[in-house]
């Protein structure tokens, strides 16, 4: 079996309408993959930048996977939320990105989008906040139902991931 180490951080997010943001993240892999150590999901702190637009989290990601096959390469899913001064949390975006398969250091930008409701919902959203959310973000992985969604693009989450592969070349995998 081959091993994959993912060591990196969620640096921060930029390009969102408001700044007080936090991120819930998780890594999802196929059935042949097993997590040996590390936390595969988590939530960052709320960051309110004083200067500039980028909210910095620097949230560590340290995972050690072992696998019997190449299907179901790990994917990272992110949900960016906004917390306002009243303590309300509003969804600001979903984003999905594959973990890179080539070893080395990668600086990735994961774009995010947010579902839109009907025009009445959008009007209400302008005044009181809130907004529709996905019933279950897992439905998105299969991709089959995505076409029914109406969304709007939001900001970008920056990540830095270092990928270390072990024993993949022993099984003839080039990446």
């Amino acid at each position, binding site marked *: *079996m*081959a*091993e994959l180490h993912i060591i990196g951080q969620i640096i921060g997010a930029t*390009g969102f309408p408001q700044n007080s943001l936090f991120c*819930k993240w998780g890594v999802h892999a196929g059935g*042949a993959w*097993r997590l*040996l150590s590390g936390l595969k999901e988590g939530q960052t702190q709320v960051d309110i930048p004083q200067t500039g637009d980028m909210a910095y989290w620097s949230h560590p990601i340290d995972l050690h996977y*072992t*696998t*019997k*096959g*190449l*299907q179901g*390469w790990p994917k990272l899913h992110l*949900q960016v939320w906004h917390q306002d001064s*009243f*303590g*309300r*949390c509003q969804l600001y975006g*979903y*984003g*999905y*990105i*594959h973990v*890179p*398969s*080539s070893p080395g250091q*990668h600086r990735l930008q*994961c*774009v*995010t*989008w947010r579902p*839109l409701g009907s025009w009445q919902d959008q009007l209400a959203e302008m005044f*009181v*906040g*809130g*907004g*529709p*959310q996905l*019933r279950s973000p897992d439905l998105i*992985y299969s*991709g*089959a139902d*995505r*076409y*029914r*969604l*109406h*969304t*709007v*693009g*939001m900001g970008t989450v920056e990540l830095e991931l270092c990928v270390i592969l072990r024993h993949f*070349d*022993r*099984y*003839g*995998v*080039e*990446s």
Partner: protein
Amino acid sequence: MGDGWCTDTGESVYRSRDAVKNLRIRVRIQRVTSTAALSQHLHQQVLSHFHGVSDEFCFVIHMQYEMDLYQTESNCQTPLERQYHTEIMGMERSKRRQNQRIFTYTDFDRFSKWEEQAQSLLIPAQPTPTLLAELYLESRLITWEPSEEFIKNSHIINTPVQTMYIMGDLGPSGKLGLKENEYVLCTIKSDSNGVITIKPDFNNNRGAYRLETQGEKREVWRLYLENASSHIRAEEKEREQRMYRDLYTRHKEYLNSLVGQDFEMPPLGILRLIVNGEIVSAQGYEYDNLYVHFFLDLPNNWSSVPFHCLSGVTQTCRTHSEDVAFFSYPFSFETFFHKEDESDGSLPQWPVMFFKVLSLDFWQRYRTEGYGFLVIPSTPGYHRMTCHTWRPLQSGTVAELRRFFIGGAPELEDISYVRVPGTFKGERLSRFGFRTQTTGSVTFTLNCIQHARAFIDANTLKKRRQTVLDQLGGHSQQGSVYNVLEAFQRARKRMQEARETLPRDLINTS
């Protein structure tokens, strides 16, 4: 008195990997009176001894009033207090001499609770969910009614700390046991990470600490604190290190065993190509609410897993600043290449992904916004590529008016026309008369992985195959020459190995 007092009563932090129950502190208090030479000397040693439960930091010394309190069984409320009761009864029976003046309190006592509560770091917020929040309660991500425990665990860095207060009863010698004469001599805090905080610190050849009593008779006492813990013996240290080493090797073996040896391999002579990618964004299109419809086209000799979906449609995305629509749509393909006809010397064709960008508006009209294609790269790794698109135009204004008002635009019947039509057989492709207009661009990120049994041999021989043909395991003339060379290398290696096993003198003479 002439000697200097130590005025620095700040706390100091120690780190210890040992259990805190092995900590021993010698506390000495000495009343300062005018007759200094004959001063009353109260030298008492406070020792912490083991009290049943594992790493807990349980105290021993009870002050006089506590002894009276716990003697009557009805006063004991918590199990801990009942434990004290049995101890005290035991002590009474054995009639051991008790320390009269120095005693301790720890966390579980009725003393320390009020002080600890004043030390919480954050005031927890208790938002009550509003009507809006209740409406959007679809997500189970947020706990709307967090319990006190939950708040403490999420907001405050909650390392459990055990505290022990060494108290001194500094009343006049006739009147011991009064609560108002209790003074805190030393505070010891220990947490589960092995950090021990002692306030004030050990004297360590500095002057004594000065304690002044309140009340009618203001007396001055001297306080000395010494670390009386015993050092670890050499053999114990050795044993500990051996134990750690064993633990680490066993953990390593356990991890190795989890990893295992099997791995899914493609059949011999087949190259497996796995593409994990995302459609990231689309930019520069005329209308809003874009979506991308894509599929992967496999040329000859390429096959795919049955029931595996090679196409997809993204969600419809409204553009925001600078006409960018974000899709962040992950896809994953797995295809196999098997060269049937070895005599055919042409290079293999790599799969191509064709896509079209469409826009959908409020009245459900859709318009084609662009067609494009993307050739999957033949080198494995991470690729980020941007593809430009065009859309077909019909001559005359009628088509454009129609597109503007009611939607519907000329579409390609065969999307593979974008690159080389599937039905094309000739030598030169002519697109004369076909009019198009450039539209925006779509960005993709791809991670390509190539997997074949042939690569195993390549790596063991430490040779990097340069051409694509070689990567397929040598299905050409060049490949066959290479195969011969490889066979020669293998034979040579075997001969060398066989030679090594022979006794030395035999080789030298030959």
